[in-house]
């Protein structure tokens, strides 16, 4: 008998990687995505993908990549999966190359590599500055091939609502909503793989795409899955501030020699180009002479905060610093960074070949996520999580260009494992709980559609984003975090009075958004309460009142589980069997 179908939710790099492995091994996949998968958020990744191919004669090794990743993550990641990922890296790059990714090349026709943050090696393969887009397209094309062979069925324009879990606690499928017809439907499956990305929308404005709400993660957390290390949030040092979002300015700009600076004189009114070299403060290079502009993201972000808010040296008194490429010749910039320079010029109106860019940190990445075992399975049998929505590979701070690798690697190991799992899965009793779950979802939908009150979900969302950005990003105080938690509780209360401006049953985007908002609020509490409990500073999690890392108390994975009265926490030992934790410091002494 053929193995049951497998559902993959999310068609970014992680989801498509799993689909490819399952289809290749003879399995059948139903692939769900809010957007056509080719438009998934992975397209926004810019700078590259790490693998220790050692094509620059530097003696780079997967072990060195492993060590940089663990150290960069301040020892919070379980070491076994990270080690395996780094070992798989070179093979994954070769495969992507065979799939036709137009990576930049050396004169000899080999893959070119560049520097990225948190390493001293040229380890990052890249396709201009649109590497995520190019990788996603390569995987999308392979999936399209399987789709045309009938091995994959796509449900694009469908939103995951919940898992269907049987009376024995085993996953048997999902419920989903057709975003056009608003039809609610159940889908049976032997295994469900969530690959639903980041949670940027919880912070209001971020570098994430608008679909990155964390709604799916929150939904299954509320159904009993652990959410791990939720408090570990990466704020990228270089984003372009904007009205609707914070647009990423890739770390590759610094990898190719970009320099971060501010005028030495507070409130200097001169345009950046007219400020002489001696009057510029290259603070990353001065404070971190060994890594310079390529310190890891948490370090660079805090340095920018310090220079702006403590030293009051932001450009023209504003919260902005320069990222300068103007000393690099035009053809090199176009060949290696063209895509991101176009973005800057289109959205800001200045040409970064000619004038230094103005940037500021922005919420970017979710290191924490759904708790999974080393095969990517959650604590509910049959539910898996891969990609940014899992917590597995980046510890307390992700190194640049490791996310694309972790997405693909997790998909590659999860797909075959899920297929094996379904082969030995006992037959389902009845409908596996589908009718009951559909009834629960139908009730939620009906209630929301006719709910009356004076609250507007978009305003509630803006308040959530403001409080999360203020209290739960770069610098954290317990007092502020507690205020944020109280605010979220208030917003959850006000949510009960939300009324929709659109009650139609056709392509109703505010209905969908309002459903997501509830899930965002629930997950926001997991983040702030986890941050309150972690009384130390580690990687991206920084508390001035607890400035040191405290391995004795907190070298542990935070695991949150849902209860009616709020998240409940427990802690799990971290696997440190290969590299003994050591003090993390990127200044000159190390």
């Amino acid at each position: 008998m053929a193995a049951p179908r497998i559902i993959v939710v999310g068609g970014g790099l992680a989801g498509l990687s799993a689909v490819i492995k399952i289809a290749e091994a003879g399995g059948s996949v139903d692939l769900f995505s809010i957007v056509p998968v080719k438009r998934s958020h992975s397209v926004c990744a810019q700078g590259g993908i790490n693998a220790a191919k050692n094509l620059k004669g530097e003696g780079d090794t997967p072990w060195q990549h492993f060590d940089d990743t663990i150290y960069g993550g301040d020892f919070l990641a379980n070491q076994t999966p990270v080690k395996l990922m780094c070992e798989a890296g070179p093979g994954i790059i070769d495969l992507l190359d065979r799939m036709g990714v137009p990576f930049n090349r050396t004169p000899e026709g080999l893959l070119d590599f560049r520097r990225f943050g948190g390493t001293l090696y040229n380890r990052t393969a890249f396709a201009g500055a649109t590497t995520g887009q190019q990788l996603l397209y390569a995987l999308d094309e392979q999936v399209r091939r399987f789709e045309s062979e009938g091995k994959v069925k796509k449900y694009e324009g469908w939103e995951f609502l919940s898992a269907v879990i049987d009376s024995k606690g085993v996953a048997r499928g999902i419920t989903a909503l057709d975003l056009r017809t608003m039809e609610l439907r159940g889908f049976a499956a032997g295994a469900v793989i969530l690959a639903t990305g980041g949670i940027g929308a919880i912070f209001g404005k971020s570098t994430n795409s608008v679909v990155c709400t964390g709604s799916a993660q929150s939904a299954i957390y509320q159904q009993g899955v652990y959410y791990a290390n939720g408090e570990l949030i990466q704020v990228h040092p270089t984003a372009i501030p904007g009205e609707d979002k914070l647009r990423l300015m890739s770390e590759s700009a610094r990898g190719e020699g970009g320099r971060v600076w501010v005028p030495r004189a507070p409130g200097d009114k001169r345009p950046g180009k007219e400020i002489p070299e001696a009057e510029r403060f290259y603070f990353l290079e001065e404070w971190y002479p060994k890594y310079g502009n390529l310190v890891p993201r948490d370090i660079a972000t805090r340095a920018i905060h310090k220079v702006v808010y403590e030293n009051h040296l932001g450009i023209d008194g504003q919260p902005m610093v320069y990222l300068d490429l103007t000393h690099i010749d035009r053809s090199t910039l176009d060949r290696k960074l063209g895509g991101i320079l176009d973005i800057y010029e289109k959205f800001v109106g200045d040409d970064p070949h000619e004038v230094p860019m103005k940037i500021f940190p922005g919420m970017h990445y979710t290191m924490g996520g759904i708790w999974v075992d080393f095969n990517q399975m959650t604590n509910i049998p049959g539910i898996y999580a891969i990609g940014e929505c899992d917590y597995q590979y980046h510890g307390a701070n992700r190194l640049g260009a490791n996310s694309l690798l972790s997405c693909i690697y997790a998909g590659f190991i999860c797909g075959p494992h899920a297929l094996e799992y379904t082969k030995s899965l006992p037959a389902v009793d009845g409908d596996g709980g589908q009718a009951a779950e559909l009834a629960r979802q139908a009730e939620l939908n009906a209630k929301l559609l006719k709910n009356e009150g004076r609250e507007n979900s978009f305003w509630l969302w803006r308040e959530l984003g403001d409080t999360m950005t203020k209290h739960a990003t770069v610098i954290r105080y317990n007092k502020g975090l507690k205020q944020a938690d109280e605010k979220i509780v208030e917003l959850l209360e006000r949510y009960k009075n939300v009324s929709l401006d659109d009650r139609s049953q056709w392509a109703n985007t505010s209905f969908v958004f309002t459903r997501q908002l509830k899930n965002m609020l629930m997950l926001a509490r997991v983040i702030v309460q986890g941050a309150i409990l972690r009384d130390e500073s580690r990687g991206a999690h920084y508390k001035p009142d607890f400035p040191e890392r405290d391995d004795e108390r907190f070298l542990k994975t935070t695991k949150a589980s849902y209860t009616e009265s709020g998240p409940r926490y427990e802690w799990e030992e971290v696997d440190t069997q290969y590299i003994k934790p050591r003090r993390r410091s990127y200044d000159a002494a190390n």
Partner: protein
Amino acid sequence: MATKTVQFEIKRQASPDDPAVWERFELEWRPGMNVTTAMMDIAASPVTADGKPTTPITYDSCCLEEICGSCAMRINGRARMACSSLVDNLEQPIRVEPLSKFPLVRDLQVDRSVLFENLKAVKAWIPIDGTYDLGAGPRVYPQQQEINYPLSNCISCTCCMEVCPQFTEATGFVGAATIAQVRLFNNHPTGKVLKEERLRALAGDGGIQECGFAQNCVEVCPKKLPLTNTISDVSRDVLVQKVKDFLRG
């Protein structure tokens, strides 16, 4: 000081079966404001310029940095991406309509899945043996990469199809985006094993000969793909393929 405002006129249609109506909006201006920001502002306070309550606007958007290809629409008559359309660069009132060549879903949202079907028809992929470890890929010199990379930057926004006079139901023309992908995959050392199949797929009705060289596509492409050169190139290859197939009988 009075707040500076921005005037919008947006074409609304509740469903394919409902009539289209225009609604006017007056929104607060902010620096760096783009058309997607305006849509978000309307969603937060859905009231027309006449003070009439309305519904939030349905439209596609995702990355907001012109790389996902979602938010293509007609803005002041021109097909373009809403996220990279800065209000300060547009004449007011800013008139926003859905793309006109694709089935309407609601408001500014249309169904562009025809492009993905076309990509299937021309086998726009590299036929690799499998995903197991087979070592490094074929060597590709930088000169070749610099030809292929721009073609691979297509974001599937379908602006090129919207503005093409030949892209109609009557011709069934595949459009420039798909032809660019044929060139990309035919250029690849492994991809070219399917070259003949791809060229034959472009040889029949709705194929490359439908192109009338209006050159609107290359003008409107937000990613500046070399579309007209590409169509010339692939046209020649299709012709050569036709002759070969004819001689083979």
